[in-house]
């Protein structure tokens, strides 16, 4: 059932945010400490548990992935309600502090990303990426895996020809 997926997501979020509030209170901070992060870890654990017990149904998956697919539009809506006027009229002190910390942090990302190995190929998490990107379409098969590769490009070509025809 789809609602079970949505409810699972909601429950994880509520528990996570509550624990984040508790953690904040325990540390004496007037803020939520990592509530969303805790919720994410709970959801990952729930997925692993459901999968191991054979209960990760299509409905549950759809209920969660629907919201993951709405992520980018929600971020766009978030961008549209930022206080950009304040940011643009902050003056040099604001601009220098923001740019300086940004450049320094980008540099650190470059340094830290040199540690450790990278995924072997560029095809990691393709399913997850297409879900978060909001594409419900089937992905093209990975290149060079089996004999089908000789057939697939032809089908792709005809498919794009059809959609091109529709556009005309």
């Amino acid at each position, binding site marked *: 059932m789809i609602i079970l997926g949505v409810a699972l997501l909601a429950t994880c979020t509520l528990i996570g945010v509550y624990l984040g509030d508790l953690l904040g209170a325990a540390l004496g901070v007037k803020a939520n400490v990592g509530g969303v992060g805790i919720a994410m870890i709970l959801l990952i654990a729930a997925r692993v548990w459901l999968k191991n017990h054979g209960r990760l149904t299509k409905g549950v998956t759809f209920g*969660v992935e629907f919201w993951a697919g709405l992520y980018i539009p929600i971020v766009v*809506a978030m961008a549209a309600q930022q206080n950009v006027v304040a940011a643009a009229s902050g003056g040099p002190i604001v601009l220098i502090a923001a740019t300086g910390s*940004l450049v320094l942090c980008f540099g650190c990302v470059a340094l830290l990303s040199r540690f450790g190995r990278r995924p072997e190929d560029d095809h990691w998490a393709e399913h997850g990426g297409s879900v978060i990107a909001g594409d419900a379409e089937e992905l093209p098969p990975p290149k060079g895996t089996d004999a089908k590769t000789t057939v697939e490009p032809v089908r792709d070509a005809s498919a794009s020809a059809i959609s091109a025809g529709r556009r005309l």
Partner: protein
Amino acid sequence: MLHGIEHVFIEQSLVAAFALVGGLMLLSNFAAKHLTNGRVHGSAIAIVLGLALAYFGGLYTGGKKGVADIPALAGIGLMGGAMLRDFAIVATAFEVDVAEAKRAGLVGVLALALGTLLPFLVGVATAIAFGYHDAVSITTIGAGAITYIVGPVTGAAIGADSTVMALSIATGVTKAVMVMVGTPLVAKLIGLDNPRSAMAYGGLMGTVSGVAGGLAATDPRLVPYGALTATFHTGIGCLVGPSIFFLTVRALVG
């Protein structure tokens, strides 16, 4: 007629927001495909368009919430508000590869520490350069460079005045906006193309809205990894800002 449409938009605010944002995405994807030849992500264009709309909305209404202050577009405020934003961020965790996330755990912690300390130092240096001498103002502006929530939380805790608070918030918001726009531009340069660097990025940039927008515009696969560390950032900033950071600055400045 126009009044009737406005009435529907106000009454059906969230539904109207879905339709409007969908239209904006469609427009952006079209522009990405045909104007930039697919070199720029459609979502990057959509986010920049959203920010531009927020600017004009803010000028028009004089409010603080971009287009969401226009009554007919209030649904944008709900759709992009903290509740649904966090809900959608949690949902992206469903796509996390546990092994990758575990492997990058230590890098994430290191990034969180650096991502709190470095912006604070830059903010402090800037505040001193611009003639602030008291520990309270210096700390508040420094905290604003961490995120736009850490700034006012710290400022309120140590009793900063409202001008300094406004500066501090503006610094944080500017940083968030710059992260959203700048990330896709520098992604290749800083090696932001795998789960490990995404976790480092989330911890270093911190600002959830900046990270959420920046990664969405760069590569959707990176989103959950960056969000995982970024969501701890503001909490940690609020923890150390009014305490360790303030006490250190006060000890040094007097």
